[in-house]
């Protein structure tokens, strides 16, 4: 490697060791925005407002990723988190939790106060630990060939995933399939078998009088001389079962079928016995 390239790399690293002015401005705008979104998510009474505040936080974090030379992660953050996950949250909120506002009753006495004290304690501990531990650390920066140099951020991440991290990457595919199947199993509701009566329950309900008649309606054409729907069913004494008359035919074409009805009912001309013979059809010349 020539000296010019080396000095150029060192110069680039020196630029990245400290935060430039533009990055500092972006951080001091986006960082408080992210904090505001997080606090708003906790303190918002409405769950939908909480979700929208979290969207603000995640968008700010995505922009912070892009500032920190992680453009791939920044776009993935915006697309996956704010685009997919938070919209899924909003869908579920609209179906489930929108009207069920938070209960103000403390189940454990003094839980909120203890939680606030613990939160302040953890925040002080983490912030002081990080701030004191990392004072002497000089950041290397992502300008090297293994990082954002060479082919750039996206290609280097892809190469890293498909070489060094190949096995975890394959494991994530199994995880995603399992999650999809699990969501389908948990979300499945069997609407067809639930609430349907068994045959015995139906019979008992019929004989208790919950239905109009204990037996099912007679189908058209039973004991009839023709397979036509227009032919009514006959009762054992030979009269027409009135329930078997098709309502459409009864209302629309009563005059048209008058002769057949009379023939079947025995009031008009009697049906001839050879009408049952399949070789002689209705309408044929006798």
């Amino acid at each position: 490697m020539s000296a010019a390239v080396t000095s150029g790399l060192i110069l680039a690293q020196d630029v990245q060791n400290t935060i430039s002015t533009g990055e500092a401005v972006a951080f001091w705008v986006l960082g408080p925005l992210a904090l505001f979104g997080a606090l708003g998510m906790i303190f918002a009474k409405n769950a939908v407002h909480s979700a929208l505040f979290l969207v603000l936080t995640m968008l700010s974090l995505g922009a912070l990723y892009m500032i920190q030379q992680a453009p791939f992660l920044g776009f993935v953050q915006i697309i996956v988190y704010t685009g997919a996950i938070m919209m899924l949250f909003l869908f579920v909120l609209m179906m489930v939790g929108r009207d069920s506002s938070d209960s103000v009753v403390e189940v454990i006495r003094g839980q909120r106060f203890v939680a606030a004290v613990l939160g302040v304690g953890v925040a002080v501990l983490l912030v002081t630990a990080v701030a004191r531990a990392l004072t002497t650390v000089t950041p290397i920066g992502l300008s090297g060939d293994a990082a954002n140099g060479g082919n750039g951020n996206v290609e280097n991440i892809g190469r890293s995933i498909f070489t060094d991290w190949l096995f975890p990457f394959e494991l994530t595919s199994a995880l995603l399939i399992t999650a999809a199947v699990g969501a389908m199993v948990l979300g499945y509701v069997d609407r067809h078998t639930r609430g349907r009566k068994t045959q015995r329950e139906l019979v008992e309900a019929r004989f208790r009088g919950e239905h109009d008649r204990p037996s099912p309606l007679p189908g058209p054409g039973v004991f009839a001389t023709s397979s036509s729907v227009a032919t009514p069913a006959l009762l054992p004494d030979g009269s027409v079962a009135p329930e078997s008359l098709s309502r459409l035919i009864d209302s629309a074409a009563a005059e048209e079928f008058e002769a057949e009805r009379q023939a079947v009912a025995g009031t008009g001309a009697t049906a001839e016995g050879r009408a049952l013979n399949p070789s002689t059809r209705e309408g044929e010349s006798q």
Partner: protein
Amino acid sequence: MTPTVYLLLSALLFTIGAVGVLVRRNAIVVFMCIELMLNAVNLTLVTFARINGSLDGQVMAFFVMVVAAAEVVVGLAIIMSIFRTRRSASVDDSNLLKY
């Protein structure tokens, strides 16, 4: 000013998420607080990738995002099924195993 400020922001976000898990009673909001904690850890990983000069931290953050997506899908399905049977999305009402 060094990238340490990102770590401080991440620590604050993580703390807010943890307090939210302890304080809020709506199961979905609790879930969102967990997402906030995951995001804070992601910011830490990205910052450490920059400090360390290697992309491994960013790859780890990517995997965290994948796991978080799977977790959200299954978790929301569980919350939906609990709501379907118990008509409530509050974590206080799911106390069948308590007594």
